[in-house]
């Protein structure tokens, strides 16, 4: 069950920006201050932004490590070292702002020649240079449209903070390289996430926590490389599980627990086997060995 997703969430109060204060300060006042002061403000804002960026990356890394402890019982390295695992979300596109040259992230198929802006730069957009009388037919209309067409990227609205390389984020915190994220926290390399926490490389997920490589799922906890998982916990490399817990390498299961390879086990035999398999999986991930991604598994990749 997917929770109700409100694309735009609660409207932002007029005149306020959601990012760190100095960035907003630059965005709002840049046109009113002399050049030297403006440059100074930009330097202050940049250093402050870097501080925010570092804080975000450190928080996301801590979250990744705690997710690994919850999933595998041990850490498998830093987020950066494991970037190769996160392949399910469409990668963010990057461009430069037409106004400031700053980096803008977006996911929509904006044209290659598009003039980009980030959300904080909207107040700095130039006013239209034409009057209603200049627009007479389709050609003049399209000329005018081209002039005012600035595509907005890095959109984070509502109550959001610590967002980087992301787009279409609503009411969320600590989001990195992700898009279409609503009411969530600690999200990296993910897409279409609603009301979830600690998601890494997930796609189309709602109300879930501590997951890596989860697709098309909801109400899931502690899940690694699985898809079509509903109301489940402690699921590893499974495809289609509903109301299940403690399942590994299983598929097409409903209301089951203690399963490995679709075999029903007793708790006493499941627990030591799970421990052994998890330590093997953690070792495979640490040594960057392939074979645990669900996309590789379902593709019938030979070991």
């Amino acid at each position, binding site marked *: 069950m997917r929770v109700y997703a*409100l694309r735009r969430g609660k409207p932002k109060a007029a005149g306020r920006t959601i990012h760190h204060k100095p960035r907003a300060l630059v965005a709002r006042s840049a046109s009113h201050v002399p050049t030297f002061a403006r440059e100074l403000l930009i330097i202050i804002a940049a250093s402050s932004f870097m501080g925010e960026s570092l804080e975000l990356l450190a928080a996301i890394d801590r979250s990744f490590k705690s997710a690994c402890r919850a999933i595998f019982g041990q850490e498998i390295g830093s987020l950066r070292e494991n970037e190769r695992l996160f392949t399910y979300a469409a990668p963010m596109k990057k461009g430069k702002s037409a106004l400031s040259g700053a980096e803008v992230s977006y996911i929509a*198929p904006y044209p290659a020649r598009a003039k980009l802006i980030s959300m904080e730069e909207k107040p700095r957009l130039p006013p239209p240079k034409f009057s209603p009388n200049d627009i007479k037919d389709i050609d003049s*209309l399209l000329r005018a*449209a081209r002039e005012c067409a600035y595509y907005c990227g890095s959109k984070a609205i509502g109550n959001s903070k610590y967002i980087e390389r992301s787009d279409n984020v609503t009411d969320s915190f600590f989001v990195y390289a992700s898009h279409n994220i609503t009411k969530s926290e600690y999200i990296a390399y993910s897409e279409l996430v609603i009301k979830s926490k600690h998601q890494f490389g997930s796609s189309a997920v709602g109300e879930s926590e501590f997951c890596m490589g989860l697709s098309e799922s909801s109400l899931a906890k502690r899940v690694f490389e699985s898809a079509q998982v509903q109301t489940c916990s402690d699921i590893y490399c499974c495809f289609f599980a509903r109301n299940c817990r403690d399942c590994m390498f299983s598929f*097409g299961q409903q209301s089951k627990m203690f399963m490995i390879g679709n075999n029903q086990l007793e708790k006493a035999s499941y627990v030591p086997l799970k421990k052994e398999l998890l330590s093997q999986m953690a070792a495979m991930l640490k040594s960057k060995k392939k074979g645990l991604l669900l996309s590789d598994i379902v593709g019938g990749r030979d070991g």
Partner: protein
Amino acid sequence: MASKKIGKAWATTSSIVLGEPLSGLDRFGKWLFSGMPGWREVKTKSGQVIVPCYAVFPGLPDSKVALMKNIEEVGGILLDIKSTPSAESLSCQMGRKGKFIVDLAEGENFDVDKCSIYKNLSAAHMSLDCFYSKYLAYSWFCDNNDHIFGCQFTFFSSFSIKCYHSSHLQRCFEMDSCSKCSDSYFCHDCENLQNCMFCFNVNNLRYAVANVVVGKEKFESLKKQVLARTVRELKEKAAASLSVYNF
């Protein structure tokens, strides 16, 4: 092929939004689904299924796709764990022996054709991951809508065609990242627009074109020209050249 109900809904919506009823919904399928991740139709022994082309699904071979109605059979395929299994051997076995259920249908659904991953839909055709909606076709990840065609990440909207990342739209066409707008066309990142065209990054406007308020008469005349061109192209080529992502 789209059902009569859906065909009628498409004619009604195109008449309201574009000013002329269009027939033959499937003819416009490629145009309506452009810019979305796509899908593929897979025939299994138990029937046809639509497999989405995002996340883990693109790598799934056709021979391994199963339907929800075969869940007992799929869940009964056992992997060998007699000799102490390794994670590597289990993943290999799962790849070789496993069948994977792709279609997920929950709630009450009526007249749903060629859809995958849905809940509580009525009169839906060729849509992926759509919930709580009626009269929709060629849409992806849309909830709580009615009469929407070619939409993506669109919520609480009605009578709209080709709208993306938006919510609360009525009678709109080619809108991106907009909310609470009605009777508007080709707008991006706007809120609370009524009767606007080609507006970018603005809020609270009526009868505006390219971010300039032009008045009702001029707006209607320009809208007529733009829609006439769009309908002509659609009738000739089943696709329109103007798009919100074209500027």
